[in-house]
């Protein structure tokens, strides 16, 4: 005999599939929605549906967007000769939040990992090379993560882009704001020393 009504059980099971949500949290969320006003639940349902129906991949930068080209690629104010290469769409958000980058993006959708079987063909690397060949570019910023996988991906892209007149740069690395020198690891500290700047 079923103890909980099927629609409730169904929603609990769907919630429980989400990352970081266990059966108890799934139950709590379901009963929270059950007690919520109907228009709030409808808005959530609409937002969920639109996530799949109204989202496209930008054919230029491969970011997920509401239109193709996306808001950034289609913006005449943005510097089209400057491309910032990132691993994930969330990295675009992080860089946009700084408010100082006025160029465009290229989203790879992952990092190379020979052990996981992720090769250059599984990422949007060939598209980046095409873009570099067909667009008049000034600079490509390799903003993959500052770790072995990210460096590996950046090294591959830099080699694949050669020979080329485009300036290829990598994000600087060093000490985080609000950090404590004593706790910095040797690798980060060494890079911070290498990349030190004249005090202004």
């Amino acid at each position: 005999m079923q103890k909980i009504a099927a629609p409730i059980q169904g929603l609990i099971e769907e919630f429980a599939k989400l990352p970081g949500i266990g059966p108890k949290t799934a139950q709590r969320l379901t009963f929270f929605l059950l007690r919520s006003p109907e228009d709030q639940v409808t808005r959530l349902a609409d937002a969920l549906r639109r996530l799949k129906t109204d989202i496209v991949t930008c054919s230029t930068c491969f970011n997920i967007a509401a239109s193709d080209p996306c808001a950034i690629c289609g913006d005449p104010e943005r510097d089209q000769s400057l491309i910032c290469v990132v691993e994930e769409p969330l990295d675009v958000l992080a860089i946009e939040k700084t408010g100082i980058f006025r160029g465009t993006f290229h989203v790879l959708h992952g990092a190379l990992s020979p052990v996981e079987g992720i090769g250059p063909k599984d990422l949007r690397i060939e598209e980046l090379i095409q873009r570099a060949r067909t667009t008049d570019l000034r600079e490509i910023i390799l903003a993959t993560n500052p770790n072995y996988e990210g460096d590996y991906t950046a090294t591959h892209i830099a080699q694949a882009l050669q020979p080329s007149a485009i300036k290829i740069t990598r994000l600087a690395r060093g000490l985080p704001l609000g950090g404590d020198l004593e706790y910095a690891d040797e690798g980060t500290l060494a890079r911070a020393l290498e990349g030190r700047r004249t005090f202004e």
Partner: protein
Amino acid sequence: MANERVYRAEGMVLRRIDYGEADRILTIFTREQGKIRAIAKGARKTTSRLAGYIELLNRTHFMLAAGRDLSIVTQGEIRERYEHLSRTYWHATAGYYIAEAIDRALEDREPQTAVYTLACATLQRLNADAAAWLSDPVPANKAGPAARGWAAVRNFEIQLLDLLGYRPAFHHCVVCESALQPVEQNGFNAELGGAVCPACARYAQRTLPLLTLKVLRLIQVTDWAALPVMRLDTRTRDDVDGVLQQLLTHHLDHALRSWNALHHTT
């Protein structure tokens, strides 16, 4: 030591996967305890104190707290950084390959000090080779993987097989046990574990040209410091690569995924 709550271990991270909001789960190959699994909490945040210590392959002193399934990384101190490794594509791929081979070859919590020493030595060699490759002013020398780096990976494969108890036979026939003659008609069989003589050719899975056999023998019996720089043609290199890959695939019950990436990278 294992029943102490907090313990110390020297090791290298072989693999890491993202977990939860900002954690990483690590496979660490330690000198003292073999392969262990540990979690580095919050390690994906830029302000994490741990992030810099859990990079792949660096030789690091870890402080760990024993947990039920996973140990928890509490502190780290890097003993040796292979900083040039990730600066060339071939050497970085080789780093991945070494990590994958060890991860596949060893069981959890099985101390393998000799394999650990071999891994550290190989990474030092690759790091030195990457530095030499990067500073080489002659562009033509950069057309393929550096000769020394290639030999370091092959040396690692042969020594690893040896340490796992699968020393391949390159001096006598694995079928009739007669000493191999310096002829072109020898063969090779990975399942039988080595070379086969022309009289037992029906057991051969592939041919074993004389130069390939000589190179394999040389790498197997020569100390690294005494190993001469070998300038080999692509065919012989591919042949040596192929023989060792067949042996590893057979003994590890699994083809190593990064082998393809390494083999096709220049």
